[in-house]
């Protein structure tokens, strides 16, 4: 790795001020993504600020009314093992458990998880080829290169990368809130607004600015959460990023869907909510496979597959259907 300085933060306000005034400074918590990025020379911060000592940020709290508040420094493994998270939001616990490995889940923080950068091989390439995310204006090697793992929704000519976080997909489906502390105080960011589409500025993965610190994620109670499921399809049975994944949750009246939540991973630069499908699924029976399939298909009319990932359009619809059925069986 390149040489860098390291210091330790014990006060959030000072950490935020340091981050706001020093463009070469990066926060480090678990380090499982940042250290990899530095080894791949995809980011070269001159100074790291260790935020692990910031007080009260590793807590997992059950909120009255059925929600949970997860501190940004809570580790993936601890959150997945938490009995209230498992009981109230199975989709969140499953998304965590299907990600990474036991070792990485013990290290990686929740705040860092939603900040992790794409696994696009051109972005991660140590030699540093054409990648607008890595080197603005250098082009996108994946657009006409090997793009099997890339986006089918929302991509631009400047970037076709996908977001690799499993947790983010579950949090998008649950309409979680990212609690951010910045220069002007605390603000809530709805999860579906947190990550960005690439547009012409793919170097920005999310809406955070310099001097912003994620302090917690709140998952509010919702009627669908208890019957929820995360389904991940990948090239290996374990310890692999998703080709396609779905977070699904349903509320039913008997076998009839009253309301559904569907979000997909592996298909876009951000977790992708299937809003048209969610509307179309209302009133359909979980036993009406053709009805479910048709409702899901309405969210795929704007899919734009690349040269090597057309299979994702069909795969994603099947994964969405199966996730919905499994969630439905828990209702």
């Amino acid at each position, binding site marked *: 790795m390149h040489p860098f300085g390291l210091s330790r933060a014990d006060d959030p306000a000072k950490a935020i001020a340091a981050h706001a005034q020093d463009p070469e400074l990066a926060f480090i918590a678990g380090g499982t993504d940042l250290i990899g990025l530095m080894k791949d020379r995809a980011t070269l911060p001159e100074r790291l600020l260790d935020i692990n000592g910031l007080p009260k940020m590793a807590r997992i709290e059950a909120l009255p009314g059925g929600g949970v508040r997860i501190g940004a420094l809570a580790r993936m493994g601890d959150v997945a093992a938490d009995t209230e998270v498992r009981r109230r939001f199975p989709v969140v616990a499953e998304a965590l458990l299907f990600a990474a490995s036991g070792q*990485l889940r013990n290290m990686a923080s929740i705040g860092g998880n939603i900040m992790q950068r794409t696994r696009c091989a051109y972005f991660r390439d140590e030699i540093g080829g054409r990648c607008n995310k890595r080197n603005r204006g250098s082009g996108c090697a994946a657009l006409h290169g090997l793009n099997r793992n890339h986006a089918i929704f929302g991509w631009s000519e400047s970037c076709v990368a996908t977001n690799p976080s499993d947790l983010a997909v579950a949090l998008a489906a649950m309409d979680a809130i990212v609690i951010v502390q910045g220069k002007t105080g605390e603000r809530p960011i709805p999860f579906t607004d947190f990550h960005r589409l690439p547009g012409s500025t793919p170097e920005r993965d999310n809406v955070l600015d310099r001097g912003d610190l994620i302090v917690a994620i709140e998952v509010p109670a919702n009627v669908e959460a208890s019957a929820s499921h995360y389904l991940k399809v990948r090239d290996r049975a374990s310890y692999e990023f998703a080709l396609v994944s779905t977070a699904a949750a349903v509320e039913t009246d008997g076998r009839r869907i009253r309301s559904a939540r569907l979000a997909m991973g592996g298909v876009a630069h951000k977790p992708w909510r299937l809003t048209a499908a969610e509307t179309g699924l209302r009133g359909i029976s979980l036993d009406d496979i053709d009805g479910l399939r048709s409702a899901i298909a309405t969210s795929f009319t704007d899919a734009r597959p690349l040269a090597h990932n057309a299979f994702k359009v069909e795969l994603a619809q099947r994964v969405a259907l199966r996730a919905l059925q499994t969630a439905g069986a828990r209702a």
Partner: protein
Amino acid sequence: MSRTPEPGSADAGTDKTPSGAATGKSGTVPVNLTVNGLTRTITVEPRMTLLDALRENLALTGTKKACDRGECGACTVHIDGRRVLSCMTLAAMLEGKKITTIEGLEKNSMLHPLQSAFIEHDGFQCGFCTSGQIMSGVAMIEEAKAGWPSAATADLRRDFTLTDLSRAEIRERMSGNLCRCACYPNIVDAVVEAVARS
């Protein structure tokens, strides 16, 4: 609600001010650690990983460097009892932490039960992944005892107990440790044996 120590709870001793002198790019930082029960002080550049510090500064070469990218598990050690990847950990961030490596598993000249089980069940060929496999397995059994579920757990809403630790559970929980010799069936046998003895 967690049943293991909170990460970051120990007091880290690197410079406390966000722009202090000890943070210089080429500077080194003293770090006090407990390694396999012994108090050690090492002086490292901030960019040095725990893996390199163990091997180069402390001559503990049982911990192996393979992918160096958090993809293979060969460098697995315990920090405060939790299994982690030493290649993705900065040594300078570990002030006051307790590190256990493969060299620290035996007690009173007796191998750890999982070490014995690996020999008994022939859980390796070349041996390069073995220390990581064993360090991962030892802590994994503790996670299962603490009731942690996995991606192989049928119902997350139920409490997990050690009797639920099936072969499928073990394979899933050990998936962060790759073995190029593909000794996986024997590795699972060894873990099953160690669970039975624990």
